[in-house]
């Protein structure tokens, strides 16, 4: 299985399409950091206006942790697209290029083949998120230094500098589950069709539609929000509150893992039965 996963990773990382995500992050993160370097005080003034009248503030709130947190917040729309670009191609790409004929006539089971691709997709997801962490938090700390983290959620939270880094690791850890759900969705679509465009567009459409439906203030639609996996994806933000709602995190995590299992199972059952006509 390791050999198969390695082969799949080679295939992923030899395609130019894979690097769109890394390039996008590599450009976006420094741009945001540059903007904050010059305009960051405006953001902080806004964030602290509720208490800056009553309080004197000392310390470096415009630091790498704030920058890392702001860039992490873009996870919602941008990173899922970069994930489905690769996830949607994992199975459909083989059909488009006709290489299923080469692979499935090898002495490997379809089960092994699909698993290798799925695992490779997860590894890609993790590597993209690690790169995001490096470029947003790592580079941010390098440019802006460290300090306390101000986080605007349901309240204004200011975390001591020694109370921040584990939160980032936990948030990114949870994001791996969120983004793996996105990858699994596009992977499932990829197993159904024979052209990668469909799964890519389809997966993004599902995410965007669910997100829109969940914010529409219509009673009926609001009753359906517990069934959208997108409802649970932002739970990583709980790690930037105090106290952390661990039960909420656990519940969301388990639900997302459940969705991953469903998407995977659908992909597997379709692929095992599929006649390879391409």
């Amino acid at each position, binding site marked *: 299985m390791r050999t198969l996963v390695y082969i799949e990773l080679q295939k992923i990382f030899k395609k130019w399409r894979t690097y769109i995500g890394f390039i996008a992050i590599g450009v976006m993160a420094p741009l945001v950091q540059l903007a904050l370097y010059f305009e960051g005080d405006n953001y902080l003034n806004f964030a602290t206006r509720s208490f800056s009248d009553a309080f004197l503030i000392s310390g470096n709130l415009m630091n790498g942790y704030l920058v890392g947190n702001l860039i992490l917040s873009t996870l919602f729309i941008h990173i899922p697209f970069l994930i489905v670009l690769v996830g949607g191609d994992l199975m459909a790409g083989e059909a488009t290029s006709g290489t299923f004929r080469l692979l499935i006539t090898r002495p490997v089971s379809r089960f092994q083949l699909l698993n290798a691709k799925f695992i490779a997709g997860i590894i890609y997801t993790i590597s993209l998120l690690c790169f995001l962490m490096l470029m947003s938090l790592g580079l941010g700390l390098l440019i802006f230094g460290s300090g*306390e983290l101000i986080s*605007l959620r349901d309240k204004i939270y200011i975390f001591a500098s020694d109370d921040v880094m584990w939160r980032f690791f936990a948030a990114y850890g949870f994001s791996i589950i969120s983004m793996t759900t996105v990858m699994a969705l596009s992977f499932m679509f990829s197993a159904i069709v024979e052209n990668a465009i469909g799964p890519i567009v389809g997966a993004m459409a599902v995410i965007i539609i669910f997100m829109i439906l969940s914010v529409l203030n219509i009673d009926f639609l609001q009753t359906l929000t517990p069934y959208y996996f997108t409802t649970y994806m932002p739970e990583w933000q709980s790690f930037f509150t105090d106290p952390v709602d661990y039960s909420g995190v656990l519940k969301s995590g388990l639900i997302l893992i459940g969705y991953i299992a469903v998407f995977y199972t659908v992909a597997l059952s379709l692929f095992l039965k599929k006649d390879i006509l391409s």
Partner: protein
Amino acid sequence: MKKLLMLLLASSFVFAQNRNPQQLLDDVTNKFESVKDYQVEVSIKIDVDFLKVPDTKAKLYFKQPDKTKFESDGFAMLPKQVFEINPGKLLSFDYTPIYVRDEKIDDINTAVIKIVPNSDSTNMLLSTVWVDVQKSRVQKIETATKQGGTMTTILAYNKESKYPLPSKVIVEFDVNAPVPTASANDQNSIVQNKRAVVGRRQLNGSVTLTYSDYKINEGIPDSLFEEKAAGK
């Protein structure tokens, strides 16, 4: 409006005990002048409803008549009120004091004095000061602000201390303040600073400052206060 207020207050207390409120306040100011300068370590504990801040430490500096400085190694938030309670600052504007009554706070005999600003230049509508009549130091201040709400400052002193410098200050808030109503999903909109919604809500809570390691009248150079202030 202000004159009517003064008239009402004065008339309501016409049968109060006779104390000279101005004298009492002057005694407080004079007592405080024995402090030429000081520096002190302060632990800050903030308990405000929509704000979650870790306990922090800072250093305060003061030099007569009104030089102040606040610095910390890391992040710290200090209520501005901390410097407002220095008698020099507290009573630095044109006001009319009105003695209300005597009151006991923790076995300390205090005189309750209303301070009414004579002009509109301050943020304060009305202040009430509890003055320890024996030791000529402020025990409590209650201020109504123009933004709405009140701020109450309670001061505690070490029994042995000969200087009117508190060992503990509790500032309680109940004021109206602008608050970014960012939800978890809108952090992005705040970055863009375009669509973020700012509302006003009651800022409710308290800040507890614990002072330690006072260094009084040891000589603080003016240059310290000329350095770029650490606080903003």
